[in-house]
């Protein structure tokens, strides 16, 4: 299975974890993050979420973030699966898994990759509720989360 998958196909997070654990057998620790479409937005129940990407910028950026993570932490495996197109509440948008002999490395790398995906990965997303369609951009919190890794680089 490829380390990076960007596709309109539904994501089965437990199944993807299963495949990843098989490939990363021998790793002491495996961390996974599953991000699902939220059921309720600011303006009421969510009807759908649309994710737009721009190939090959999207793929190239994620590949570069993956290489940064591999250079920074001793990883035995990384998996990034990101869905694009139209999806329903509760469905999985993103799945990230990291494997390492070191627990902290697996946690930090997964955390770092999610911060990248939330604030720098080349995607745009539009949330549709009963009353409106709204393009969602990262919140201040997402940017400050992502900045944690840059501050550490400087020290």
């Amino acid at each position, binding site marked *: 299975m490829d380390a990076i998958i960007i596709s309109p196909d539904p994501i089965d997070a437990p199944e993807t974890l299963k495949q990843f654990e098989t490939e990363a057998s021998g790793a002491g620790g495996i961390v996974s993050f599953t991000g699902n479409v939220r059921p309720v937005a600011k303006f009421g129940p969510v009807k759908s979420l649309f994710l*737009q*990407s721009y190939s090959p*910028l999207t793929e190239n950026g994620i590949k570069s973030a993956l290489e940064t993570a591999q250079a920074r932490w001793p990883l035995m495996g990384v998996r990034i699966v990101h869905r694009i197109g139209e999806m329903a509440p509760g469905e999985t948008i*993103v799945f990230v898994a990291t494997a390492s002999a070191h627990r902290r490395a697996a946690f930090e790398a997964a955390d770092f990759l999610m911060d990248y*995906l*939330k*604030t720098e*990965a080349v995607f*745009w997303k539009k949330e549709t509720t009963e009353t409106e369609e709204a393009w969602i*951009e990262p919140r201040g919190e997402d940017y400050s989360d992502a900045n944690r890794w840059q501050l550490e680089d400087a020290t």
Partner: protein
Amino acid sequence: MAKLLYFGRLSDITGTAEETLSLPLEVETAGDLRQWLDLRFECAGALLEPTVRIAVNSEIIFDSTGLSEGDEIAFMPPVGGG
């Protein structure tokens, strides 16, 4: 002819996600194109925001970068997935 792409909320403003056109003579740089399109679409500056980045042939570029016929030029508002 150049191919123009408007991503995310910009396509709501321009009314199209993609168009092909001949670059006007007075448009030499990416910055010139921003200005020209912002007037054309009556965007009131939406295309001029510094958070809107421009990619030419899949590379993020500066406003001072020159444009050529045949370029694929993408206007990208703030990105974010997950």
